[in-house]
């Protein structure tokens, strides 16, 4: 058929008139000349399959009647599986139940353009998408169904996140029991408006937690202002936090409101609070107690409505004992304490996080890395990660740079992690190795750490004890 089309095309091309001739011959239609060969029914499908937007059509009973190639790619569902099924079974969008855009279009007759939603694809991933809808009509103008086109916005969303360094709570990836417990109380903490102290080593995601609290709080429409207390010298930090009046000091030509007033109605996140000087601690305490700020060089106090979330990678209790942190401020900040365990204490999250970062870097770099080789993953499972999740992210990024294929291998890891004097290439063993070995290793080491207590081990691994038992049986452990 394709050959037939080709030969037809050639014939017509041979008969093509000079450019000037078209004007008279076509009378506005180009179909009679070779350049404008009439569209054939089969072309439409080819055209629709060549675009990057997903397209599907439904009949009046919401059964899918057409599903293009991009729709297959985005949803992860093959056309043969999709055709004839209800659209909500296939599309699985956040708006299917409440406020289906296509339903709205079919009811109103008005097309919809660029409406936001997300879908859950066949891998269980949430993909942000943009949806446009229109009514399909027969030759008499009667509606016979609808068409929905959709764009995968994952890449755009990832780039936006990367540019703004603005990650959401969906970026908190963990199945660790302690993390899950912390996450489950987060909404209640967020709604309480209480001051929160987030503690944990560097790179454990304290800012993500702060953002999650803000996003889930009643202040979510207000600003979230982040200040790193260790990044500025003391005198600058004071003016940065509380502002200054014009002429307060040399070069202070203009009034500056300060971060607290910028965060009015929202949340201020004070990172690395343990680095703050005693003098500034006293001023911060006053703000927390009286809810007013007094800019440098000003005699006027200004009321401020701000929720404070502080974070530290240091043991504030110990700093208090050592006299380096005010006890009264500590009590003011430590109304709710959320502790983030270091990555070495939640090793079960490493494969999940690796998968998460692979997906992110695939989107950012337009790559199609499928996975990390089990041998490389095994090396990471043994590593202590002093830099925690941030270090793991850097390791995956490093492996992306060195790898040109679709699997990240041990030799793509940074130097200190790379296995010494390894023969080049993964060899057949690496290809044969499976996650089964790693799973077994993780279970064994967790069992050992938990003194062979299966309940505790299951809790540590974030799985049900029955699941642990079944896995142990399957992997011939114990």
């Amino acid at each position: 058929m394709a050959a037939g089309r080709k030969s037809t095309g050639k014939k017509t091309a041979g008969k093509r008139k000079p450019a000037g001739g078209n004007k008279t011959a076509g009378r506005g239609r180009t179909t009679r000349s070779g350049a404008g060969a009439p569209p054939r029914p089969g072309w439409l499908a080819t055209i629709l399959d060549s675009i990057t937007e997903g397209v599907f059509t439904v009949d009046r009973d919401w059964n899918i009647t057409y599903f293009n190639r991009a729709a297959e790619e985005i949803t992860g569902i093959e056309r043969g599986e999709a055709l004839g099924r209800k659209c909500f079974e296939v599309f699985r969008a956040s708006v299917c139940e409440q406020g289906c855009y296509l339903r709205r279009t079919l009811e109103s007759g008005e097309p919809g353009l660029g409406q936001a939603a997300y879908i859950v694809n066949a891998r269980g991933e949430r993909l942000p998408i943009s949806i446009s809808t229109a009514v399909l009509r027969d030759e008499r103008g009667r509606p016979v169904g609808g068409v929905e086109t959709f764009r995968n916005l994952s890449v755009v969303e990832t780039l936006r996140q990367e540019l703004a360094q603005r990650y959401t709570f969906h970026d908190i990836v963990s199945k660790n029991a302690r993390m899950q417990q912390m996450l489950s109380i987060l909404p209640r903490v967020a709604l309480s408006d209480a001051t929160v102290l987030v503690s944990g080593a560097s790179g454990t995601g304290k800012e993500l937690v702060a953002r999650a609290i803000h996003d889930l709080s009643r202040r979510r429409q207000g600003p979230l202002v982040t200040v790193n207390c260790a990044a500025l010298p003391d005198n600058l930090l004071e003016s940065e936090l509380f502002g200054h009046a014009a002429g307060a000091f040399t070069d202070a030509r203009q009034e500056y409101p300060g971060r607290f007033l910028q965060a009015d109605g929202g949340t201020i996140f004070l990172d690395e609070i343990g680095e703050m000087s005693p003098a500034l601690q006293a001023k911060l305490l006053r703000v927390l107690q009286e809810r007013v700020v007094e800019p440098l060089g000003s005699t006027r106090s200004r009321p401020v409505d701000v929720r404070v979330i502080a974070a530290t990678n240091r043991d504030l209790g110990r700093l208090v004992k050592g006299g380096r942190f005010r006890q009264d401020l500590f009590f003011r900040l430590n109304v709710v304490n959320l502790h983030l365990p270091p990555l070495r204490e939640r090793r079960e999250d490493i494969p999940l996080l690796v998968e998460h970062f692979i997906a992110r870097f695939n989107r950012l770099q337009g790559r199609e890395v499928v996975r990390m080789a089990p041998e490389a993953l095994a090396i990471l499972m043994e590593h202590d990660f002093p830099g925690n999740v941030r270090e793991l992210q850097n390791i995956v990024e490093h492996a992306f740079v060195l790898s040109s294929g679709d699997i990240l291998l041990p030799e793509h890891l940074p130097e200190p992690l790379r296995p010494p004097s390894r023969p080049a290439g993964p060899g057949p063993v690496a290809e044969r190795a499976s996650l089964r070995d790693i799973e077994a290793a993780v279970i064994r080491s967790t069992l050992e750490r938990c003194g062979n207590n299966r309940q505790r081990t299951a809790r540590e691994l974030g799985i049900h004890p029955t699941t642990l038992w079944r896995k142990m049986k399957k992997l011939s452990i114990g």
Partner: protein
Amino acid sequence: MHVAIPVWQERVSPVFDTARSLLLVRVADGRELERKTINLVESWPPLRVARMRELGVDVLVCGAISQPLARLCQAAGVRLVPWVTGMVDEVLVELLAGRLPAPEFTMPGCCGGRRRRGRAAGPAGRRRGGGGRGRGGRSRGAQDT
């Protein structure tokens, strides 16, 4: 044992993450003892799972479910039977008879889209309606990892 099924128009909700209504059924010895409908207002995944725990849900039969939410459910000890579609009453009958998952009650592309990423997934992984679940058993591997 408590079985929960998110409901929409008497069907299993297509997406558990956004489901607004939950049918909670108390069952014993394969028989339904009691049922009630619960409003689900929690959209934050950890809170949604905390609600499952409060309700004492042992088994959650649902349609599509995002990975983070699925992981939370598993961590909370809730047994998942995901990617299920159909009329709720029929699904419940099948569940109580131990016939879930079944091809006719399975969403398309239910096997985790392995074809897209892994490319190496066998044809069984893409068979319509529950193919790849292996000898008719639950796809536990997909849920527990």
